[in-house]
């Protein structure tokens, strides 16, 4: 079953076409890589999918429902969650409070629930503490619950980002450059984590990444963007051999002017 269907999605910024007529389908249970040179429109595409930006044209369907331009927080309740390129975290919170806050959609969170705080509400919300600890252990941050997120190492921040993305129980998780700036062994750890998201939690993953090795290893299929358009799509080996992709990344050897 197609989990995410994107049809003819376009976004213009004035004269610039950041995303141009993109059509792609992500199947449930897939790990999809989204690659392309800098400025190819990968993050813009993520922003269009998750309601951060409104598309100029085209439509997005998630589990067969039209979600084009729907607000980010509503999409989270539908099961579509994303992480950000920069280490977006609740920097002043502890690791535990970050993940607990990210369990928002599972909590009784309203104003009246907070004011009255009946025993049932309290019990319901307290039960989420256990879930938060589980998620922290799952991403490999066990024992760091009380550390302040802003003072974690870069690698740990990235893991915490995944934990925060995981907390709302998404069916589709969009990861924006999860291994950017990570050391070699941290890249391996993150990729193993991405794989286990799919294998043990059944979460479909789309990831934007510049680290080719990592993408090639972990993704089932790869979509390549250039100048906002899809120029290739297929299995990692086919993509690696595709002349159009090589041209997009390296330019054409014979013609020095084409950059």
């Amino acid at each position: 079953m197609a989990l995410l269907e994107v049809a003819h999605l376009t976004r213009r910024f004035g004269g610039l076409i950041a995303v141009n007529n993109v059509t792609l389908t992500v199947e449930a249970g897939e790990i999809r890589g989204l690659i392309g040179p800098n400025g190819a429109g990968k993050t813009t595409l993520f922003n269009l999918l998750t309601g951060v930006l409104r598309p100029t044209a085209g439509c997005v369907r998630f589990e067969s429902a039209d979600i084009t331009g729907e607000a980010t927080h509503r999409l989270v309740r539908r099961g579509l969650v994303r992480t950000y390129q920069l280490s977006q975290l609740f920097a002043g919170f502890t690791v535990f409070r970050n993940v607990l806050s990210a369990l928002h959609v599972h909590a009784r969170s309203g104003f009246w629930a907070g004011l009255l705080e009946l025993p049932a509400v309290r019990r319901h919300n307290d039960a989420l503490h256990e879930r938060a600890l589980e998620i922290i252990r799952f991403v490999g941050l066990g024992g760091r619950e009380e550390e302040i997120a802003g003072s974690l190492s870069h690698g740990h921040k990235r893991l915490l980002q995944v934990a925060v993305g995981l907390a709302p129980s998404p069916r589709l998780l969009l990861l924006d450059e999860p291994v950017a700036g990570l050391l070699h062994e941290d890249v391996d750890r993150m990729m193993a984590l991405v794989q286990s998201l799919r294998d043990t939690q059944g979460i479909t993953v789309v990831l934007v990444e510049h680290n080719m090795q990592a993408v090639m290893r972990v993704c089932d299929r790869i979509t390549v963007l250039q100048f906002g358009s899809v120029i290739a799509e297929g299995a990692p080996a086919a993509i690696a051999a595709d002349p159009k992709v090589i041209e997009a990344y390296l330019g054409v050897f014979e013609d020095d002017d084409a950059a």
Partner: protein
Amino acid sequence: MTKALGLVLLIAALLLLPLVVQDAYYLHVLILIGINVMVAVSMWLLGVTGLISFGQAGFMFIGAMTTALLTKSMHWPFWIALPLSAVIPALIAAPVGRLSLRVKGVYFFLVTLAFGQVVNGIFAYFQEPFGGWYGIRDIPPPQPATLFTTLNKVPFYYLCLLLTLITCGVVYRVSRSWFGNVLWSIRESELLASSVGIDVPTTKLIAFIVAALFAGVAGSFYAAYFAYISPLVFTFEYSVNMLIFIVVGGFASIAGPIVGAVALTLVPEMFRVTGKYQLLAFGLIPLLSMRLMPQGIIGSYAAFRARRAHRALPRSALSLGIDSEA
């Protein structure tokens, strides 16, 4: 548990205070403190999300005006006017919030500032029914009139104490709940908050409405207590004072606005003897406090306690990096 005990003792002390303090002037200052605490605490709840509304005096004025018109012109009892004076500012806050919350940071200050000025301007412009620049005099006191007389401030003190405790109680509970945590997470990162499913605009709007509601309560009490309201009272400066209370007290917990409002209502009164230099003294306090206690009184106190706990620890524990000052 010691915290709960301390709270009970504090409330008991506040209840028994009129037995000791019988001087009308001191009771008056205590009542002023109560009014300021109500407004500062409700402003703080919205402030948790990172937004400072300079329209609080406007909502307070709307509450005061509601009470004045209902009790004086329509002869309704204060006890009916009071809840209405809370509800009407809250109802007005809904559309005002929806508009002003579209913008962030300094633009939000400006829009809410403008709102306060507009409220003030409307009430000042229309002689009928709002009294214009002269304001409204002889607002009837709460019932029974035999109890709430101008000569006896004790009943007013207890009424003020009750309203202040309700305000602080509601804001405290909400700020400690999941909803309160949502407000803090919006302050930390709005983008991430919406990405974990938080409806950021609606949450901010609720906080905005609650802040307006309690500002209305404070305004209603103000009208009944002073029996006089005018556009010269509910000014932009009043809203700024509320912000100063919060900044000097500290943002970290509800104790901040309370401590700030208490301290900064008392201090100018103490400087009253300096006459024309009173304002100067009031101006120096936020200046010095921001220089010496950037986290406010509450923040400095927490840091002080952390340092003391630190010193009391054995050397081995220090090496584990136990440090709560960060």
